[in-house]
């Protein structure tokens, strides 16, 4: 009996270590994504699409692995998953409701003059900095 218990313990721990190893592999892939993307992009598959897929697609998989295996949602009462999904849905509804206005700077009978001016001014100064060989690219620290 004790031997059986000990075997079950080892199995449980090995399972967690395995999940952690998978999470690390996914982390490496998400870091490599933007580096590799320009070299594998072709046709309609642009580099930024590959970066977004490796960044956010992998984030969703990692979050699922942690939630299911470390938070034990896979063996938790189902209503907890539904409860959490409801909160996510609530947030997505607010996102969908406000997105059309915030992501654009003008629409039917309205214009966000301040935001538009901010964008134009910032892009202009960035272009000037580039033209003068100003700082851009990866962080300098």
């Amino acid at each position, binding site marked *: 009996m004790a031997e059986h218990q000990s075997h079950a313990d080892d199995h449980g721990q090995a399972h*967690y270590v395995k999940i*952690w190893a998978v999470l*690390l592999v996914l982390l490496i892939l998400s870091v490599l994504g933007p580096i590799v993307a320009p070299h594998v992009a072709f046709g309609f598959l642009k580099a930024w699409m590959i*970066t977004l897929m490796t960044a956010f697609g992998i984030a969703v998989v990692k979050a699922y692995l*942690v939630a299911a295996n*470390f*938070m034990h949602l896979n063996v938790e009462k189902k209503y907890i998953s539904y409860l959490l999904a409801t909160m996510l849905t609530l947030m997505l509804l607010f996102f969908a409701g406000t997105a059309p206005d915030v992501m654009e700077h003008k629409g039917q009978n309205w214009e966000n003059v301040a935001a538009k001016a901010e964008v134009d001014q910032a892009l202009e100064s*960035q272009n000037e900095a580039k033209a003068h060989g100003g700082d851009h690219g990866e962080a300098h620290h």
Partner: protein
Amino acid sequence: MSMTKPIATTRSATGIPTGKLAVWWVIGSEIVIFGGLLASYILHRIGHPEWAEYASHTNTWFGAANTFVLLTSSLFAVLAHHAAEHGDGKKAAKWLLGTCGGGLLFLCIKAVEWTGEIQHGYTITANGFWQFYYTAAGLHALHVIAGCIIMLIIANEARKNVELHRVELIGIYWHFVDIVWIFLFPLLYIAK
């Protein structure tokens, strides 16, 4: 998997120990807090093409190192739960201290990273991108600090084999903090 049987079963009106249900309640609320913050960031990031240049100054390696640290600390937290579930309070306390060490290392890396950024003029008042950057990562760091403090209190009890069910509760919270970072990482460091 032997996780179906909760450690404390005496207080349970919903089929879930009440303390654990309260933690799920906290997490349900946190989803809206962090979700709202991150969704606002996405909205503004799409509406402000100039942010791409600002975002290019974040350092991917700092972000990746911190992701590694948090994922590893999450492993320690679940191993603490595993030990508590088998009645080994001393072992659970040790794993919790390891988890806490991960949290401290995370904060140290963040401190070095932020110091460099601030020295380069990327402060919270620089522009909208850096405002979101410091607010989101700062709120997350506050959760890490809170988690570490609670974890030390629980580890102190666990080593005496007292209130072992709490090891699982702080673990659930910690994994959630890990998940928030899993999304902050691509948002602030990868999607440039």
